[in-house]
């Protein structure tokens, strides 16, 4: 199973999607500050908040991740691009273990 880190977002390969989840039309996997969102193209996004989990992504061989700072620079494009392997991924947001408890990374 593949495991990717896209800045403060991890994509962890899993065998199958959980039951009772709904596909989203959104291309935004996770919001970042100042418009620095983690987005994707080609694939299916199933949002579901549960602790660190923010949802699931079903990737095909054309799926690409996009972000202003994370990925390969593409000439003439503002967003960087990252290619991931075909598969089903659980999406986890990064946290900080602070003196005040576990907190999602704020950016």
């Amino acid at each position, binding site marked *: 199973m593949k495991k990717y880190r*896209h800045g403060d977002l991890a994509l962890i390969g899993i065998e199958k999607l959980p039951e009772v989840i709904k596909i989203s039309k959104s291309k935004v996997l996770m919001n970042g500050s100042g418009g620095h969102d983690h987005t994707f193209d080609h694939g299916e996004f199933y949002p579901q908040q549960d602790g660190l989990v923010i949802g699931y992504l079903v990737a095909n061989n054309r799926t690409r991740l996009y972000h202003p700072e994370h990925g390969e620079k593409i000439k003439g494009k503002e967003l960087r691009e990252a290619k991931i392997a075909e598969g089903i991924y659980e999406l986890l947001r990064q946290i900080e273990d602070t003196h005040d408890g576990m907190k999602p990374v*704020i950016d």
Partner: protein
Amino acid sequence: MKKINNKFIYRGDVKITHDNAKEWADKLKDIQLITGDLSINSNTSLPALKSVGGYLSIYSNASLKADSLKSVGGYLSIYSKIDEKLEKRLWNNNSKNKWNVCDLCSDWLLNQDKDFTYHINDIIFDKNLFTAVRLGNLSAAQVFEIKNMEQRRVAYGKMEKAKMTELPNLKTLDESKDKYGFVQRVISFTVEGFKDAFLFYNCFCPSTGREYYLETKQKTCEAAKAKSFGFNEIEFTEEW
């Protein structure tokens, strides 16, 4: 404003980059009005330009020479150090517009006490934190107290690194290289009033090389990275 002859009007948006700067300079040398947005990403001279109908954005490391430019219809976003005369002229004619300013803007502009949106290295700050970071007024402990990780990164980047020695009982608990060749560390220091030491995982983004500090309870780099995603250990196939 006097009516401008059609031949001196450019209709549409203009985005000037390193690759097209010369082409645009030739095309716009007599243009007095750009009806759309003007985005400056490379040094540019627009001697005849008087007015921009849309947004004006000047990005870092780009300079704009536009001695006739007065009026802007939309937001003004000044992310570069520009000529103070231009800055004052733009302010005097467009003070009611929304402004995005940065740490490279002049003291004069930043002292206009307007409801600006403040940026340092593309990251938004509130006015107080912006001012403290810009003027180098934060102690190392205050930098590590910043809750927003990107603001903390920028504030750390701007901080005199000698200030790190002010952190009480500063220690490096673990240090290694990640698989992209960047140094990663776990540091600890104490803060008065707290029984436990503060630990931070210091790492670099493999895409941009930007340096981050994330608070952790783990004493090793690998554990700190894994735990930040809820695992005891993890080996990523690829990281960006």
